[in-house]
């Protein structure tokens, strides 16, 4: 791909790539730094880029993902990793938990977003990034698996688990608002 064309196509995706970098790092400066490195790496290998449907965006996501986890691996080796990156979510939803124990029809979605925001921020980076690719980018499981370099079954279980953890948080909200029981 020619240099000018690469710059044009890649910068068209800047907002989406930055959004993903924010999900991974949660810090604007780190996200900007990550995006810059991603674009540089992409330029170096742009000759190898092959259009496989979906344009350049999935390819940039994949490079971003690799750059981020390279940094995580390097930080682990140097023992300087932030707790944010290695935290684990301990609450394990059951294999197929029942539907929420509140009245779904009367659930007040007006008050949900702030709690959801906190809950999403508490998830591990791989859960946050999978939520973004699925919810915002509207990607299919197979496309997400390709970007994250894991089997599709792992994407399915991550998405399921991430949603279940978020619902746990909403359940607390529902209890506070007196919506439990049906």
């Amino acid at each position, binding site marked *: 791909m020619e240099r000018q064309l690469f710059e044009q196509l890649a910068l068209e995706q800047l907002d989406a790539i930055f959004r993903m970098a924010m999900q991974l790092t949660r810090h604007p400066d780190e996200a900007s730094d990550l995006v810059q490195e991603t674009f540089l790496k992409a330029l*170096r290998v742009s000759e190898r880029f092959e259009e496989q449907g979906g344009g350049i965006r999935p390819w940039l996501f994949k490079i971003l993902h*690799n750059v981020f986890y390279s940094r995580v691996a390097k930080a682990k080796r140097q023992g300087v990793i932030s707790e944010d990156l290695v935290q684990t979510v301990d609450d394990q939803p059951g294999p197929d938990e029942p539907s929420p124990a509140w009245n779904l029809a009367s659930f007040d979605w007006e008050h*949900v977003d702030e709690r*959801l925001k906190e809950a999403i921020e508490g998830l591990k980076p791989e859960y946050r990034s999978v939520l973004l690719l699925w*919810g*915002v980018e509207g990607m299919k499981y197979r496309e997400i*698996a390709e970007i994250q*370099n894991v089997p599709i*079954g*792992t994407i399915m279980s991550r998405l399921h688990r991430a949603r279940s953890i978020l619902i746990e948080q909403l359940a607390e909200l529902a209890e506070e608002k007196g919506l439990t029981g049906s």
Partner: protein
Amino acid sequence: MTNPPSTKEIRLYVDGELTPEESSRLENLIENDEALCQRVDFERKLKRHISDVITRQADTAPEELANQIRAKLDQVDRTIVGSIAPQPLARWLKGPSRANIFAVAATLMIVAGAVLFGIFGQPIDDIGPVPDTDVIMDSAKFVASEHNRCVNDEASRNQKILFTDPAIAYQFISDHLETMSVPMIDLSEIGYEFAGAGPCGVPSAERSAHVMFRKQQSDYGMPQMVSLFMVADSGQFRFNGSFGDRPGEWADCDGGLSSDRRVLIATDGRITYFLCCCDEEDMERIARAISFQIRFP
């Protein structure tokens, strides 16, 4: 499809991941079931709100970021052009009469290096072991990638997993690893059946094997598999406290530079085990089950 549909099935439907036939069956159920209709509606709203929240967190990149990137890309261009442009020094270095000078200089440097090492160098026995983490990380990266490949591509899996009879497979592994008999791992209590085993090429190991298990009732209609890699341990990992070097203790190691996959590692002193799992929720239970059956010393 279960009746009533499970939460996982509802989510696959909302995500557009069911087949047209499965979707149609679920839609028929929804038409006649108010509670199910509410559950589907709830999942759709949840998805929309998650999307809204994430988008609002960082809708657009900072304005200056595009300019910073352009500047860096231009810098790369200049570097490339600079390296291509013929320079006086480059021309001199490429000159035909310089070869002898280089040869003499290289010889002098080798001699000087040997003398300095003789004076100041350590005996080889005093030099500590190379850091083990790179060997472990490289192996973890390899096994994560192999697990991925074998799960995603049935043909690759069949080519690699040569032995599907557990008794024959474990006999093969024991022979291949040149160790005492390897215990047969049974994960059926946690819902996984033996899928097969075969030789593997884990880096830094002369002999290694790959054992796969398949989830008996996959919730997603896709293969959900476990990979257990057994690597003959000849001290190449040099466990030093960074990883699970106490026998029977599983530890996290990085799944490699290009994957966020979780890989667990443990050793019994003869064999080092690497564990990968599609459904990460099951990972701890699987590790515990394996530990129990191997009976680490």
